[in-house]
């Protein structure tokens, strides 16, 4: 091969290499841009889905007229100290708290020391195989409050608490529990089957989160959260506040 031919071959190689590098650079640029666009679109979809769900929820919202504290809770008693209790009817620790502290709370109410505000919330929907027992039971409690039987129904729900990971109590059972505490009218049953207070349960759960409730049971006495929600701690805090 002549010297000229060798040089021409070398030049061709350099040019080919350069073209390949340019192609790679162009492809990398385009793929990177695509990745960014895909991620931005995915994020926007998430935002849009959330807004859609919130609008939908707002349209369906029925706040039970009996609810206090901005329509988020049901009150017992008229004492000066405010006790806020955030509970999920699926939460075993809430049940334990109720059975350990229920009497003490009733005492505080009966002696006009405190007003207890029960906030049923739904943070454990994932624990009922997709039947959303937390939402359904919180909504049922709202319906019971409308029938004037919140306290009784609240006790019945904890006494019949399903295990986490089960389907939860079905609607027929929720209606039957209502009958057992005197909610025999059609209004209660209709509210259960018509999902009347589902959107309300979702709304108050969000409201609770906004107030710093990160778990259940959360017990606040005059607005300050108790580290360990026990009967003794509640009584102590009420005594200190009252």
């Amino acid at each position, binding site marked *: 091969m002549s010297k000229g031919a060798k040089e021409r071959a070398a030049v061709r190689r350099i040019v080919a290499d350069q073209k390949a590098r340019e*192609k*790679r650079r162009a*492809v*990398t640029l385009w*793929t*990177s841009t*695509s*990745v*960014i666009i*895909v*991620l931005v*679109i*995915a*994020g926007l*979809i*998430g*935002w849009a*889905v*959330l807004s859609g*769900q919130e609008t939908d929820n707002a349209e369906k919202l029925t706040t039970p007229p009996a609810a206090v504290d901005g329509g988020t809770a049901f009150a017992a008693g008229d004492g000066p100290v405010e006790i806020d209790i955030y509970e999920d009817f699926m*939460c*075993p*620790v*809430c049940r334990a*708290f109720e059975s350990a502290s229920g009497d003490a709370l009733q005492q505080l109410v009966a002696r006009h020391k405190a007003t207890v505000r029960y906030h049923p919330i739904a*943070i454990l*929907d*994932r624990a009922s195989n997709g039947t959303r027992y937390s939402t359904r039971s919180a909504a049922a409690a709202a319906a019971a409050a409308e029938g004037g039987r919140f306290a009784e129904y609240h006790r019945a729900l904890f006494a019949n608490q399903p295990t986490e990971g089960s389907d939860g109590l079905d609607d027929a059972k929720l209606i039957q529990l209502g009958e057992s505490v005197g909610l025999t009218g059609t209004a209660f049953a209709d509210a259960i089957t018509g999902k009347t207070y589902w959107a309300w349960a*979702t709304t108050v*759960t*969000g409201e609770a*989160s*906004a107030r*710093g*409730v*990160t*778990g*259940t*049971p959360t017990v606040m006495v005059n607005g300050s959260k108790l580290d*360990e*929600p026990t009967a003794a701690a509640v009584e102590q805090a009420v005594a200190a506040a009252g």
Partner: protein
Amino acid sequence: MTRLALAVVWIVAGGQKMTDLAASGRAVNAYRLMPYDAAKIVGAVQPFLEIALGLLLLVGLAVRLSAGISAVLLLIFMAGIVSAWARGLQIDCGCFSQGGALAAGQTPEYAREIARDAGFLVLAAMLLCKPRTRFSLDGLLLGGHR
């Protein structure tokens, strides 16, 4: 395959959160790092972002960039967990669930959560260093793999 492993991690993590965006928002809010309204949006955007990132890694498009973004996200998550730990918050990281709330009596497992994220970070780092793998769109578009 490192790429597929990281892809699956993202798709599973995102998929579990996507089913209940409100819960995802509450999980973010439980970290108490931003106002609730902001947390709600982050909680809704994040699962979709995770799934998209997983799919991009799965098909192997711009792997180096996807791996880089993965690493940045993982570092943010780890920082969040560390800060929750440092502040003594009693929360579940919500990494693979709707997390957020921990009932009284449950103990958070921050060390384990951080270790797990560190493991994922190693995967991302390996991909960052060697982004060219078999059966990827990158390979198809750029021709062969080095």
